[in-house]
Structure formats: structure tokens, C-alpha cells
């Protein structure tokens, strides 16, 4: 079965000269369709970098990243854009909603970018799925942290992704809100069947996933199911 996303001997470095840092050091990983994978590690372990690399947001210094069996390096700009629009979605730690759009418009923007016949077309329906139909016309600044994360989830669903990448989705939320967000993600994952990769430092969050890959100083040090 073709992986949704994979990396082979991946190396990612930042900076120049004496300040150059190796964030990922020869990491190899596969994400199967529908799989729930957690990337766990302390701050600076490389989990966010690996997440971004899998999603094509970061250019590898060495090694290779594949999306649905196709090497990212072989894709042109338009093909990458299409990948990001229709196959990969993100939920960032701070939600990263577009501040000048309402909840409705944030979801509509993603639907429009995807422009996929398979994707949902009704932002209100998606907002309803995350329980925020009543906040459709609110701006991100008028929502709580949890509400912003739920809108981010609705936006991600608007892309009808094969892979959802979540970077510390509960990092800025209190434990109760965070738990509800995680429950929602789980429910949507079961509903829509996308692969889920979550970067987290939290053991309990990681435990909700089918597989946990532990990272330390840019290397995979442990894998557990």
C-alpha cells in the first residue's frame, strides 16, 4: 500500500556557518493511509520540522520526502500547491486563522483553494460539524482559543485532505478544552478517514494514536505502537 507520506534518510539543517543547526538527522518514516501517528519529543527535538517536511513546507537539506508515492522534489510549484490544497491540511498550535476573515470565510477560503469536486462546499456545514455554526460570522479575535482551533479543524476539512498534520493542537489550550479538541479530531478522523500525524510533547496526547515515534535531537530514537 502506498504511504500517504514518507521520508527517507531525511536531513534538514537551518542557519549558516557556526550557527548552522541540524534539526533532522537521517530520519526515515512512513505514514500509512488512515494511520494515526504521533511524533513525540521535547522542545527542539525536531518534531515540528519533521511535520513541516512531511507536508512540504520545509525543503530538505538531504534525503527525500514523498507524498502519495511521489517525490516532492519532482513536483513543480503548481503541483505542490495542488498537494497542499487538496491532499494535506494543517492544524497549527495557534490555529493560524486568517485574521481578516470570519470563521465562515476562513473555511470558505480553504474550500475555494481546494476547488475539488470531492471536497465539501458548504462552510456552514463544516462549522456545524465542529459545533461552531453559531460563530460563523465571528472574527478570530472574537473567539476563544478552543473555538479558533475548531475553526482551524473545519478549515482543514474543507480541503478534504488525505493527511492532516497537527502541530501541538492543544499546546495553547487548557486541559479540558484540549481534551475536547482531541476528541473532535478523533471523531473527524474516524468520519473522514484521513491519516493523522500529530506533533506533541504530551504523553497522554501521544497515547491516543496508533503509533508513536519518539524523536531526540533530530533522530528517531524509539517507535511504539
Amino acid at each position, binding site marked *: 500500500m502506498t504511504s500517504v507520506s514518507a521520508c527517507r534518510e531525511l536531513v534538514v539543517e537551518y542557519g549558516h556557518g557556526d550557527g548552522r543547526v541540524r534539526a533532522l538527522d537521517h530520519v526515515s518514516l512512513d505514514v500509512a493511509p488512515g494511520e494515526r501517528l504521533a511524533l513525540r519529543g521535547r522542545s527542539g527535538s525536531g518534531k515540528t520540522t519533521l511535520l513541516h517536511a512531511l507536508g512540504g513546507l520545509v525543503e530538505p537539506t538531504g534525503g527525500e520526502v514523498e507524498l502519495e508515492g511521489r517525490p516532492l522534489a519532482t513536483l513543480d510549484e503548481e503541483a505542490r500547491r495542488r498537494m497542499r490544497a487538496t491532499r494535506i491540511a494543517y492544524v497549527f498550535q495557534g490555529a493560524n486563522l486568517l485574521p481578516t*476573515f470570519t470563521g*465562515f470565510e476562513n473555511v470558505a477560503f480553504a474550500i475555494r483553494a481546494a476547488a475539488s469536486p470531492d471536497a465539501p462546499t458548504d462552510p456552514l456545514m463544516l462549522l456545524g460539524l465542529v459545533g461552531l455554526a453559531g460563530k460563523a460570522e465571528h472574527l478570530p479575535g472574537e473567539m476563544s482559543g478552543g473555538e479558533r482551533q475548531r475553526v482551524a479543524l473545519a*478549515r482543514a476539512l474543507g480541503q478534504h485532505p488525505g493527511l492532516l498534520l497537527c502541530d501541538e493542537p492543544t499546546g495553547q489550550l487548557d486541559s479540558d478544552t484540549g481534551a475536547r479538541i482531541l476528541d473532535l479530531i478523533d471523531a473527524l478522523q474516524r468520519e473522514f478517514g484521513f491519516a493523522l500525524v500529530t506533533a506533541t510533547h504530551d504523553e497522554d496526547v501521544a497515547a491516543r494514536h496508533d503509533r508513536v515515534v519518539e524523536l531526540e535531537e533530530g533522530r528517531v530514537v524509539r517507535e511504539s505502537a
Partner: protein
Amino acid sequence: MTFAALAFANLLRTPGRTIVRVVVLAAAVALVGAMILFIGHSLRTMTSSSVRSVPLDWQAPVASRPAAERAALAVSKQHGVLDALPVATAPFAGAIHVKPGTGIFRSASGSILAVPETYTQNIHTIRFLRGSLRPGQVVLDQQLAATLQAQPGDLVSFTAKAGRRPVRLRVSGISVVSAGDILFQPLNPLLGPAPAQPPVETAVMTVGTFAQKLAPQLPTIASSSGLPGIPGSVPGTQWQVQAQVDPAQLTGGPAQALRQATGLRNRIQSSLPGQVNFVDNLSESLNTATGDALYAETLYIMLALPGALIALGLAYLAALGTVERDRRELSLLRARGASRRGLVALAGIESLFVGIVAGILGSGIALLALRLVHVGRGPLTLWRVVATVGGCVVLAVLGAAAARLGAGAAALRGEVAEGRRPQRPRRPLWQKLYLDVAALAVSGLVYWLTARTGFSAVVNPDSNPTLSLSIYMFLAPALLWLGAALLLVRLRGALLETVARRVTGGRARTLSGLLLASAGRRSAAINRGLLLVGLLLAFGVNLGVFASTYDQQARVDAQLTLGADIVASAPAEALKAHALEQKIAHVQGVAGTTALDHSYAYVGPDLQDTFGVNASTVTSGTTLRDSYFIGGTANHLLAELRAHRDGILVSKETVTDYSLNIGDLLKLRVLDHATGRLRVTPFHVVGIVQEFPSAPRDSFMVTNLDYLLSVTHDPGPNVVFAKTHGDAAAVAKRVGAVARPAGASVKDITTQTAQTVSSITTVDMSGIAKIEEAFVVILAAAAMALFVVLGLAERKHEFATMASIGSSVREISAFLWSEVAIVLAGGLALAALLGWLLAEMLVAMLQHVFDPPPDHLAAPWLFLVGLAVAAVLGALLTTVAAGLRLRRLPLGEILREQ
């Protein structure tokens, strides 16, 4: 790491932002620096022009020739005096030239000017047309030469006084006495200059010749003060000392030069007590120039200061571009233990670096700009360069510090956590007090009040010019600027926000809907751009329209001052004998001509210039505007003149002073050339004239040429006006070739317009206008570019998120260029409205300066289009560059930042 090293590293870390800050600050200080340099240069130019316009600086009456020679010698040795000479003026009863084979030619009474042989070296009241001044001989003024039909080498007999033996003198030259009104004026040091009607017939000879041959026949008068300044009224010889001030001693602007000249005169008089008391023609001219200089300074400030302030606003914007990020950074630094003093020091040192570079760059631009417009060709002294650089650096450092510290002020004042929270905008005090509305209201009120008073301004009669009323006058445009700017800030793009909300309702789905929704919610940021771009473009429109109208009026004023495109002046006999009007009419490039007689007449005790015109042909040679007349159009009043042979147009002051009505009989005393005496002549008032080509600002009269000649027994007109096709200077050369051999002087409007005399309407606006227009065009492009750059910087995270969602670069760019388009469109509309309004206000406020006032504003379309194109190009190029940048955004790195 020291604070200096840290500050330097911080600047290098964001090279783009640093360069933008430096460039915009440099432009702002360059504008201010150029303005100050230009003002200084213009004031010095006004001084030198004012000094040049005075042919004879000082005259002191003395009792005798020995007294004149003693005093002249003493004065000439004084520091600051270029030359001082003993001179005499005296009357003669008549002159005769017996021309063998032709007849006997006689002149009426006239005046003698006796001067040393070296007179014309430093005093330029006489211009020799032929020959020169020789001891024992006489130089005839061209009018006298024409009357006597005499040439150099001929013998002419002068009778000093009726009944005395004539004195024969050989003619050694023919001259033009160009300052007869000053040379022969009554000399009363207490009253000052009192220019008199110049004598018709003048003879020039050396002091020795006069003293030997003619002076013994005439009484010597100690002083001509108290005598009327009319020919024939001075009964004897007036000895005097004439002196010229060294122009190099008069430095700086007219006010400073006036103080220097007055001080010099007082020093000389006090060092030679009882010997000389000067009539000061120079101070009179400098006093007038001082008043004009004050207006010039105010005008320049009004035109340049808004631009400089807006440019500083751009610099402030550049520094505040990432105010939120700066605020968070500073708050984090404080959280990590940095002290407030340390942060202030860091910001201050950064500002110092930016300010020094910007100041040096800006001063270089200012100096170069002045060179490029051919201003400041005079010595650019080391002191001036140092002062310019120093001033610009100080200004730039202050501007940079204000922006930088303003950005960090909130973080420096507040708690750490508060610094990290997004700031909720608070309504400032001026908004609560509605200062913007108040400013606009007061602006309108001041404008209305000054309009009611006719926009006149006051200059303190104690030669100490003050701007008492002028300050209020300029409050109107100043408050309009301020009120408009504050109102724009208050509105914060409310209109856009409302429209967006109504159209999209928070549920936009299409690209256009999303663009509108985004713009509506970024209305404050858009408004910020609109404010600066709009005000900058408005400044450009205001400047361009005012400068263009000013140039237009300068040409009109030059034509009014000179009289026509080309003016040829000659003695009446010469004009008639050589049929000059007809010859000039046939010169290539001449469109039409008219001849007129410029003479004088007394209305009561007032001597007024009188113009005899041919009412049927006058408009062939010059332009008459309806605004020149009161109570009728130009055509109507010319028709009245044609209908009444003895009709006369008089000034409003004459009508008021003598309680005249249309149709009233007006008896004038005119000079009868046949007898050399004044005779009472009846005229009838047919209209009121307030302006006339070549007429002075004082009261004057216009009448029919043939009637005037019939009563004055003048041989004919003495002036020809000519209209031209095309280049007046080129046509004037051809007219000169025809007219000068007849002894005529020829002037053209191009040369007249280019001359800078002591009058604000001929103060050279083109230099400062070119400099400022160039700056505005560059700043317009820079302002749009800055808006794009700031927009990209502010929304980098947002655009990265869009890209991560899969939006195309084209669509992401649309969010940038749609805002640019709104700012550009709004800015151009604001510029058209506000800029035009300000120009109208400024032109209306300077009505009394323009002579005549403009009928309409002049639009410099080339510049205005260029300005709009610069703004569009600046936006376009930067948006394209931004699009390329968007393609290369490091998404991962940006999205990691929270």
C-alpha cells in the same frame, strides 16, 4: 556585546527595513534642507537684485563745490563705500544749435548734470550712446540731441539764465540719462527719497567745465528740499555728494542688508558731522525688498513644509512598520532582564546610526538638487555645507528617534505581560475634543475673514517687517492641512469597512468577496496608507498648481510691468523721424504694434504718469484684461475713450481723493514742450483704470494720444508696444536691429520675466518648485512602495498560512494589490480635491501679491500626470517584486513564529 554593537547588529538583521527607513528619512531631511538652502539663496538674490536696481545709493546736499569735494573725498575713504563723488545739478534756460545749411534749432529749458570724469566707473546713471565725457565739452542727452539736431563735434550754445551770455560748448557725445528722477530729485535727508519728474532736456559735462563756464552765472542753493520736484523749479546750482555702497558689504537677506546699509550710513554721517546727511535711495529699495522677502519666506514655508512633514510621516511609518513585533520583542527583552534604560539606549543608538546615514545622504541630495536647478552657483562656502549637513543629521536623528522610541514607548511603560498582549486601540484626546472638525471650521473662518479684508497684509512701517496679519492669513491653509489629516485618521477607513460589511455580511465565498471582506477589516491599515499617499499627492497637486499659477502670473506681471511682449522706447522725434512703429510692425515675428506716449501730468499737487494711447490700435500691441478696469470691460472703456477726444481714465484713488464721477471735468497741469511750462488742460473722466501695461503701481491716467499730443506739443509718441508670435527674445533681437540705430532701447518679456527684481511676483519660484516637484514624484513612488513593503511585512504570517492552505501566489498577491489599488485610487481622489482646494486657497490669499490677480488657476498637466504615473509605477513595481517574494517565502520558518 555593547549597546552600539547590538544596535548595529539589529539594523543589519533587517536590511530591507533599515534601508527603507534611511531612504525615506533622507528624502524628508533633503526636502527640508533644500528648502532652507533655497530660501537663503533667494534672500541673498533678492538683496543683490534690490541693490542692483538702485542706480544711485546715497545723495547728500552740500553748500558749495569745495564742500562737495572735501566731503566726497572723506566719504570715499570710508570702509564699505565703493565710491563717492562731487556732483552738481543746475538748470539752463535754453540751448541753440546753428546747423549750417539747415537752420537754427532751439531747445526749451532743461537741466545740467555736472560730474567728475570717472563718474561712470561706479555710478551707472548715464549710458553713453556715442562719444564720451570730455573736459571743456558737453554730452547731450538723446532727447536734447534730437531737439537740437546735434551730433558729436557740433557746437551748441547754452544759456544758463535768461539774459545771460550764452556759453558755447562742443558736443563730445550723446547719452541716455536713465535715472533722471533720482538725479534731479529734491534732496531732503529728513524726508528721504522723493523721485521727481525727470527733465526733458539734459546736458552732461564735467564738474570743472560747469564750474568754469556756467556755474558763475547761476546762484548756488544750499538745498533743494522744499522745492517741488518738477523741471524748472530749481533756480540754481545744487552741489551734492553722490556715493555708492560696496555691494560686497551687504550680505544675507534684505533685512540684514538693510541693517548693514543703515548702520554704514549712520556711521559715516556720525564720523563726518555736519559735512554729509544722506538721502538714502538704497535703504528705500531694501526696505521694500524686506517686505517682499518676508512674503517669500512664508510662501516657501507654506509650500515646502507640508511636504517635509508628510515625508517625515513616511519615515515614521517606515519605522513603525512592524510596531507589534517591535513591541513584543522589547517586551521579551524586558522579560529577560533588560532594563528600561538599556532599551532606551538601544533604541537611541539605533536611531543615531540611522539618522547619521540618512542625514548625510539627505544633505547630499539637497545640495545636489540645488546644483541641478542651477541655484547656488555662488560660493557654497564650507560653513554652509557643514551647517547643511549638520542640520540634516540632527533632523534625521530626531526623526528616527521619535519613530523608534514611539514604537517602543508602550513596551517601555507597561508590564511585560501587557506588552505581549495585542493592544486594544484607545481613542486619543484630540478625537474626543473633535480637534479635526475644529481645525477645519477655523480654517474656513480665517479664510472667510481674510477674504473680507481683501487679503491685505501688514508690514510694520518702522522698517521692521512683521507678519502680524500674514500669520493669520496662512493659518487657513495650515489648518486645512491639519484638519484634513486628522479627519482621515478619525475615519480610519470607516466607509470601506461599512461597504464591505454590507456587501459580504461576514460570509464572503468568492475571490472578489474575500478581497473586499479583507480590505474592509484592514481599513485602518489602508487608511494609514491613504492618509500618507493622499496627503503627499495633495501636496504635489497644491505645489504644482500654485507654482504653475505663479509662473502664469509672473508672465502676466512681466507683461504688465514691461508693457508688451516687446517694448521699444525712443525720443518722440526719433520715433517719428525713423517711422519706427511701421518698421517694427514689419519685423518677422511681430504680430501687431501700437504707439503710445508716456508723459506726466499733475492732478492737484500729485504728479501722475499719463499714457496717451490710440484706443483703436492699443490692443494690437498689447493685451488689456477686463480686470484692469473697474465699471466696465476693456472694450467698453476703450470705446468711451474713442467717443470722447478729451476723455481720460483715472485710478480709483484719484476718484476717491477728488470725489470724481464719470463725466466730471478734470483739469490737469501738463508740460507744454513748446514753452517748457506747465499748462492747465481740461479732460473729462470716462472711466476708472487700476492696471495698465507699463503703468506704475501708483495712480496713473490713460487718455487719447492725439489729444495729449495736441496739448503737450510733443512731436509724437515715445513708446512702441509690439505683440509677437513665438519666442519674444528672438523677435526682440530683430526689432533691436531695426530700432537701435534710431536711438531706441528695446526690451522683451522673456528677459523681463527672467530678471529677479525686488518683487515677490518675480521671485524665482521655478527653482524651489522644480526641487519640490522632483521630491514629490520620488516620494509618491516611494510612498506606494513603502505601503506595499509594509503590507507584505505585516501580513507575512497570514500569506504563509494562505500558501500552506494551497492558495496560489496569484491569489495571495491579489490581497496585496487590491489594497494598493484602493490606496492609489483614494489617494488620487483626495489629491485632486484637497490639493486643488489648497491651491485655490493659497492663490486667493496671495491675491495682493499677484499683479494683476489671476483669473483662473493654471494646471501643470505634465507634472500632474507624471505624479500619478510615479505613484502607479511605484506601486506596480513593488507589487510585482512582492509577488516574486511571495513565491520564495520560507513557509516553515514563518509558520513556526506565533
